[in-house]
């Protein structure tokens, strides 16, 4: 059980890094779906071995939303907008990848120094969670298309979710569920906004937003 938990975490790290490398929007959507599925799997592999009904419920909710709901929805938007399948990364492929690795190193460095309760975080969880968070931010910064930024936002949220797993007690499951609802609303609103931006600007390239500055 324990090694499976570690394996899933490592898989998450790998998806992060592939996301940074990838230039195809459909690939990004698929990877975000995979991340959702991995998160749902993590919930079913509690380190202390006590699996309860709330966790199962949460896992199903996470899988439905992050593993199936959002990717299908984003794919639908993608088709509707008729986007090119390849998005040119703003900073190339090397810089985001290098940034991701630096973030990983930084997270490992931070793990030793952060004042957390002994044994609160299972090994590797904290650095991977933080790296996921940073990778999401790098995706937001490095991709020109607004849709890729929505995926970046989703990855950031995945990182936050990962950080929250060890802190989860019985009551906080509902708290996590409400965050999920929040994310759902956010993604929904962003997709609609992107749709409108596309019709107003004939593009969802965020660089064109600079025309709006004062």
């Amino acid at each position, binding site marked *: 059980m324990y090694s499976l938990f570690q394996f899933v975490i490592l898989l998450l790290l790998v998806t992060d890094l592939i996301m940074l490398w990838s230039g195809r929007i459909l690939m990004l959507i698929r990877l975000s779906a995979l991340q959702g599925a991995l998160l749902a799997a993590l919930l079913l592999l509690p380190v202390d071995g006590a699996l309860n009904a709330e966790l199962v419920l949460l896992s199903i909710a996470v899988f439905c939303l992050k593993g199936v709901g959002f990717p299908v929805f984003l794919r639908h938007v993608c088709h509707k907008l008729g986007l090119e399948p390849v998005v040119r990364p*703003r900073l190339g492929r090397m810089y985001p990848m290098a940034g991701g690795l630096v973030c990983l190193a*930084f997270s490992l460095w*931070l793990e030793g*120094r*952060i004042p957390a309760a002994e044994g609160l975080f299972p090994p590797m969880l904290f650095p991977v969670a933080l790296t996921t968070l*940073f990778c999401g*931010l*790098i995706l*937001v*910064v*490095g*991709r*020109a298309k607004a849709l890729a*930024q929505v995926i970046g936002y989703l990855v950031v949220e995945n990182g936050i979710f990962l950080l929250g797993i060890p802190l989860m007690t019985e009551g906080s499951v509902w708290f996590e569920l409400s965050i999920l609802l929040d994310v759902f609303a956010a993604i929904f609103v962003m997709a609609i906004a992107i749709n409108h931006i596309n019709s107003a600007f004939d593009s969802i390239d*965020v*660089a064109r*937003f*600079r*025309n*709006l*500055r004062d």
Partner: protein
Amino acid sequence: MDTFLLALLVMVAGALVTGLIALRPVSASTNRTANLIGPGAAAVACLLGLHGLFSGGWGSAESFLLPWGLPFGAFALGLDPLSRLFLLPVFVLGITCGLSGCVSLRHSDPSEHNLGAHWLFYLLLLLGMTCVMTARDAVFFMLAWEIMSLSPFFLIDFNDRDRLVQDASWVYLVAAHLGAVLLIAFFALLWQESGSTFFSAMAAHHPANATALFLLSLFGFGAKAGLVPLHVWLPEAHPAAPSHVSALLSGAMLNAGLYGIIRSFDFFGPATSMPVWWGWLLMAMGAITALMGILKALAQSHLKRLLAYSSVENMGIMIMGAGIGLVGIHNGSAWTAALGFSGCLFHMLNHSAFKGLLFLCAGEVLHAVGTVDMARLGGLQKRMPFLGALFALGAASIACLPPFNGFAGEFVLSMSMISSLKLPGLEQQIAMVACMTALMLTSGISAAVYAKAYGMTFLGQPRTHFAAEPHVPENRHLLPLCIPAAACVLGGLFAPLAFSMVQPTLDFIPAMHEGVVEEARLAIGQTEGLLRHISLFGWAGIGLVLVLALVRRVLLARRGVKRGPVWGCGYQYGTSRIQYTPASFVEPGARIFGAVMGTRVRSVKGEGLFPARASLGVEAPDVVRGKGYTPLFQLMERACNALKIVQNGLVNIYILYILITLVALLIWGVA
């Protein structure tokens, strides 16, 4: 204290009512109503305030405390002789300028001016000044200071369609807030050290960094008082504002700066622990301010700008007096200390009277002729004799001619300098002599300035047909001006009485406590005796003039008197262009002091035996503004524009900023 609080309530009520009127659509009737209620409320409040000042006994101290429910500060008021003395010009000019404004604004065009708003801010200005001079809590003081500083912005911007007026009001706003920033730092430091916002607690605490506090107070309050180099807003704001507002700003609001400087002596610990260089710094800055102010005034041809620079000069003289007082205390010389402080305060009272009068006269000239550019005026004395007489009286007072009040004030200051020649140390004596020279030079040039102001405006022949056919004000409309005029005359003829009002103040200047008070009373008593002699000479002089006038009348009664044009010089066809112009009056002075004044003389001399064309012009742009502030603000603008690179409009980069901040905070938090 009760009537005083009632005065504050009347101001607030008046402000509320005029504010409500201002919210309604502007029409002739709303303007008329506001023009009645505003000045009416101001007059009632000021009369109540005056009653409150005198009712409790001039020398007594009263206080009033009301918690206001905020986490810090309190509505703490106090009336001591220092507050009473500074409130006197506020209330007297509050009535005078209110009435004069009511007369001058009665025909305002409703499509251009909302008088409800104007009187709202006038009342707020009065309220702000009153609260500043009575506040005994730092938070309340700063609130009142902000009300006092913000209201003039809207008052100055009365003729807001004029681009120059807009610029002037913005310059004022920036200057007022730069000063306020220093004052906030000043009170914040005091609060931090003493742990309380009450003045009494701050005064009881001996601050560790007194010099920093002193400099903050000097420049913070100095910006309001118009101390060089923080004076640049004055010559812009005063000419732009309506004249009754200029009179109130110059005669009462500038005093708030001086009040702040003197009040803040309370917070610096025992007087003897204050370093002597504070006094010398005040004296030097005062002397430079006075000289620069009067030299710039000499070069102006715009009457109101001339008066504004003259205000800078007079504030310089007062600050010099405060500096002499500090130096005297440090040297243990009660004479120097008492006469320095009392001269400063006495001159403050006198300045409020004559500067209020002169600005109101300038307003009447503007109303009558449509301009106050002296190159277009002249010959107004014959056309408006009463107004001319009032201006002449004000000019004689400010030029320190006996028997008027200006002479009495500067006489006390001179006495303080003469007594300070006994100070130990040659260098102190030399510095005192230098200051005395500066004061004498200032007074001398001031006489030239007002000879020019009165001569160019009222004497000679009209230079334009506007001046030849002015819209003559009715004498009853000039009645409010008689209040400051009477103060100028009576302040000189009853100088000992006026001076005795200053005396109780000295007990409340904290720097004066250190055992010098008794000796100081002696010095004041002897100076009062001297002033009594001077006022006797004044009475005698007036008597002599009256007798001579009578003799002249008798002698001329039997002869035919022939009148000719002024500056006719026997020419058959005289022209007004023969007479002196403001530029030619200044030109000799501008050639001597040009480097200091920053004047530029442009002269085109006629050539040949029959010169066709010649001209002379003297310009005096403000050097401090032109070469100091303008480049500084341009530099700041460039720096701020350069920072716009941060705001590049790219959403991604903004998120990058968040990322960088997050990482930096994490590292900082962990390390």
